[in-house]
């Protein structure tokens, strides 16, 4: 208990010492908070995007089979469906029709898709919220596009897709199979690709190998691979931004060193008096480290809190293009707030560790002053 009381008294002393030099400490605290804010904004945002992508891919098909011709993606013949369905372990297989169309009017790409249940009536379309906004159309309006043969293909918009699913549906056009084939000139015996559902998730890899053996010209994409690629991409982007910010961390460490080195005459006298009344060098170092700890915790909590607000309430305006990617019809989607403990730990290593290291030498220099010299 005596040890605890001693620490409480030291903390009390450290706090009053910080309060005696408000301007100097406020400047350090502001820079410290800004560094934590920058780093934690990057980390919070990339973590949230990773989660979003993982949630999205959870609903993706286990296997996608595409045909390759000369190393390029090509349309797959419909008879391949029968070959795939014959593979033991396959629960279901279905052909997909999807593609991109460039709209010169708004210089944007739309994604055209035929829904799996083929529920759209011919001549109609359901459109994504961003398409509706950028073209200024709504239910009942007619949109017309130039087909593959130059003839126009017209769609009557029946409804728009809710903004909540903007992440996947911002630039989407849901159309009927006949209209899709007429627009892009795709023959009736071809699909864009084939999606496969597997009965036992543990056999995905084995089934993929069997399909690969049965269809040598096919490229098989596993959901796990897609998930892994997304994770790697976002990890890499986050890491790149952090490496760029290492310069800021270094500048911050030098700043902290300078601030801690610049002892005023008052501070030196204060330390001299403390040593004259019996404080050990280790005690002075202890109290100065405690001051650093208070600064670190305050800056860490304030910076992290501000970054949380920045990312989850203000849309992370500072890093959005770098981490999310960009496009004319980019979906506006709010990120779901989430905190990751491993990120907090690594953030601690990025900020508190360099700060504490940078201030040790100045603290030691201050602590070993000779009381006789400074009080004279």
């Amino acid at each position, binding site marked *: 208990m005596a040890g605890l009381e001693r620490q409480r008294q030291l903390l009390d002393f450290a706090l009053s010492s910080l309060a005696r030099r408000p301007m100097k400490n406020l400047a350090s605290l502001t820079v410290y908070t800004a560094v934590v804010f920058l780093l934690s904004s990057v980390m919070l945002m990339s973590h949230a995007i990773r989660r979003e992508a993982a949630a999205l891919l959870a609903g993706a098909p286990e296997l996608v089979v595409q045909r390759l011709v000369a190393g390029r993606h090509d349309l797959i013949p419909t008879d391949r469906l029968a070959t795939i369905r014959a593979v033991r372990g396959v629960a279901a297989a279905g052909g997909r029709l999807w593609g991109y169309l460039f709209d010169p009017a708004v210089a944007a790409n739309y994604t055209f898709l035929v829904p799996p249940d083929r529920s759209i009536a011919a001549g109609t379309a359901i459109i994504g919220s961003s398409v509706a906004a950028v073209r200024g159309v709504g239910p009942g309006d007619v949109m017309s596009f130039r087909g593959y043969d130059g003839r126009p293909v017209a769609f009557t918009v029946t409804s728009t897709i809710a903004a909540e699913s903007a992440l996947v549906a911002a630039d989407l056009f849901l159309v009927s199979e006949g209209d899709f084939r007429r627009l892009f000139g795709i023959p009736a015996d071809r699909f864009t690709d084939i999606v496969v559902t597997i009965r036992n998730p543990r056999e995905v890899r084995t089934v993929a190998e069997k399909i690969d053996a049965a269809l040598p010209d096919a490229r098989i994409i596993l959901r796990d691979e897609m998930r892994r690629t997304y994770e790697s991409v976002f990890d*890499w982007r986050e890491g790149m931004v952090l490496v760029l910010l290492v310069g800021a961390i270094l500048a911050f460490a030098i700043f902290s060193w300078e601030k801690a080195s610049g002892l005023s005459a008052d501070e030196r006298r204060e330390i001299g008096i403390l040593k004259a009344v019996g404080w050990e060098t280790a005690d002075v170092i202890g109290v100065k480290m405690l001051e650093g700890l208070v600064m670190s915790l305050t800056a860490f909590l304030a910076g992290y809190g501000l970054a949380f607000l920045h990312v989850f309430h203000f849309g992370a305006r500072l890093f959005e293009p770098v981490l999310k990617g960009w496009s004319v019809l980019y979906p506006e989607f709010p990120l779901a707030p989430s905190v990751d403990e491993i990120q907090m730990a690594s953030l601690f290593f990025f900020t508190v560790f360099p700060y504490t290291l940078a201030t040790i030498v100045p603290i030691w220099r201050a602590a070993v002053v000779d009381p006789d010299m400074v009080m004279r």
Partner: protein
Amino acid sequence: MLFHPVIIALLLSSLTSTAMVGASVPFAVRLLRRWDLASGSEAQLLLERRTYLVSTLVQLVLLAQLASLVLFVFNADRMASLFTGAMCAVGTLEADRFGFPALYANIALFFLAAAWLTLDHVDNRGWDYPLIRVKYAALLTLAPVLALASLAELAYFLGLRADVITSCCSTLFSGGGITVAGNSLAALPHGLALVLLCLTLLAVFALGLRFLVGGRGGTAYGAASAAAFPVALAAVVSTLSVYVYELPNHHCPFCLLKAEYGHVGYALYIPLFAATACGIGAGIAQRCADRASLAEAAQRTARCLAGWSLAGFAAFAIVAVCLVARSHLILFGPSAWRPLAEFVVGGGR
């Protein structure tokens, strides 16, 4: 893989730590050669002043290393999703040949760092720098281990490739397949592993209580704590993990950390590591009590550490018993006890 945020943080910490401790080595050598407390020369005064800087630096660096072991394992588990074939930390560590060496080096560093911090703590309680030479000689032993651990970590992270197909824990800890240290641990019979664990823990508790009550046998308690660590790990790999997974052939010590098993691994490993480190520290502190200026302080520190260590081992034991009790797996049915019963009923004939 080098641009993974946690990897950058771990490398930042380990390389800075190595640089700091490396920079302290020339000072340690100078101190070992020239330290003379009776002298009032300027060089001696300078040495005395510098010890505060070096001690504080090394303290901070070693504390960071203790934390980075936890981060290293946690990250290895998390990164399993990035490698084909990896189900937990084992897959991530197997993805490069330096993975397990980096882990073992970090574990060794953890205990060496804890021992050095104990020495430093006890030394600071005495007015005449009683352990200064021991402390800096120990730093010279610790520095190469830290450098090796950092190099292994760097080589591991540089060698990580996402396109590598790695091995799942079931091929490593199933008694067949690839051979690592865990294989022989997994092959240990369940009964033997549990009996060894019980006997070791009983010995640890007996020695600990004897030291706390009578003040004797601190060094023996330290040695017993160090010996209990591998025995406990062997029991976890061979038997306790089997009880948690309720699968007789799954022995992975890392899957215990996963959410699907309620992160029970942390409840086992954190008390075990802390108890071992504190136990070794208690032994070291007790050994220092023969210095005149430390007679009382070292004894007090040793008792305090022994208390924490006993609490840690007790927590480990309680968690282990709970894991066995709540498991639906029955490894020792009535038939397992029949030979013993026949022996008793038959009067030992």
